[in-house]
């Protein structure tokens, strides 16, 4: 029988079982790394460094996990904080520079695949809208959970979702259903 996240967390808390924590990391590494890759605009090396930092912080602070939210939601919050601190250090957390992004977007090298276009369209969104879309649409969080992860009001999450969706729809109009 496969152990639940709660079972594994209890083992870490009671026995300081690092193998149990390893299993937790194995289960959630893909979603955490995926989120960070999108937040860092596919800077894989930076995203993986931040993901490692995320799991280390999670291990050190696991006693503060109260089980009120899902473990994955708690991890996303740590991951987002790691990203934000890193971005502050790099002075990148100033919203998006549209001109810079337009210049980054070279239509001639774009992969014709829909997945590539979606990921690229996501990377073009301003950080607040991108974060909300990633958490709610890709990682399945509710608006309320996303608000807690991002530490912003619920209404702001909804607004960012709406704006982000509109922009994505416009960008991906050619791919939409007939």
């Amino acid at each position: 029988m496969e152990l639940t996240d709660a079972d594994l967390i209890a083992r870490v808390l009671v026995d300081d079982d690092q193998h149990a924590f390893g299993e937790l990391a194995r289960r959630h590494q893909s979603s955490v790394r995926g989120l960070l890759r999108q937040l860092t605009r596919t800077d894989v090396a930076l995203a993986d460094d931040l993901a490692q930092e995320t799991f280390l912080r999670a291990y050190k602070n696991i006693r503060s996990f109260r089980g009120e939210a899902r473990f994955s939601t708690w991890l996303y919050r740590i991951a987002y904080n790691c990203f934000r601190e890193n971005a502050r250090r790099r002075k990148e957390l100033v919203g998006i520079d549209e001109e810079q992004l337009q210049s980054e977007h070279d239509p001639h090298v774009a992969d014709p695949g829909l997945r590539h276009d979606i990921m690229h369209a996501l990377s073009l969104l301003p950080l607040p809208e991108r974060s909300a879309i990633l958490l709610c649409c890709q990682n399945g969080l509710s608006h309320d959970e996303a608000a807690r992860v991002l530490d912003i009001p619920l209404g702001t999450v909804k607004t960012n979702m709406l704006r982000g969706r509109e922009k994505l729809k416009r960008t991906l109009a050619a791919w939409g259903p007939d």
Partner: protein
Amino acid sequence: MDEKQQENWLDRQLREAAPYIDDQGFTSRVLKQLPARRRRRDSLRAVILLGITFLASVLAYGLSDGGRFVVVAMERLTTLPTLWLFALAFGCGIAVMAGGIFAAIFKTRELQS
């Protein structure tokens, strides 16, 4: 195009666009960076508790004329009626069980919080 249909399509595509990222040694790297286990602290605690218990026993033995009080207590116990002995044993068992239950509840609450 229907607005709702378009939104559903977009949500589905967004979900499907997120690829599964293979571990490729990521978890191992995380585990290597974890701080050392707390076992050393736990064993130190056990050593302190055992040491204090041993010291207290030696002190009690020395201060009570070679454990004379134990012999006296045993002599008194033998003079007690059988029913009293059963009651005493039962009472001691209940006290130990209550202590265990209290410790378990306390530990569970600590883990839940």
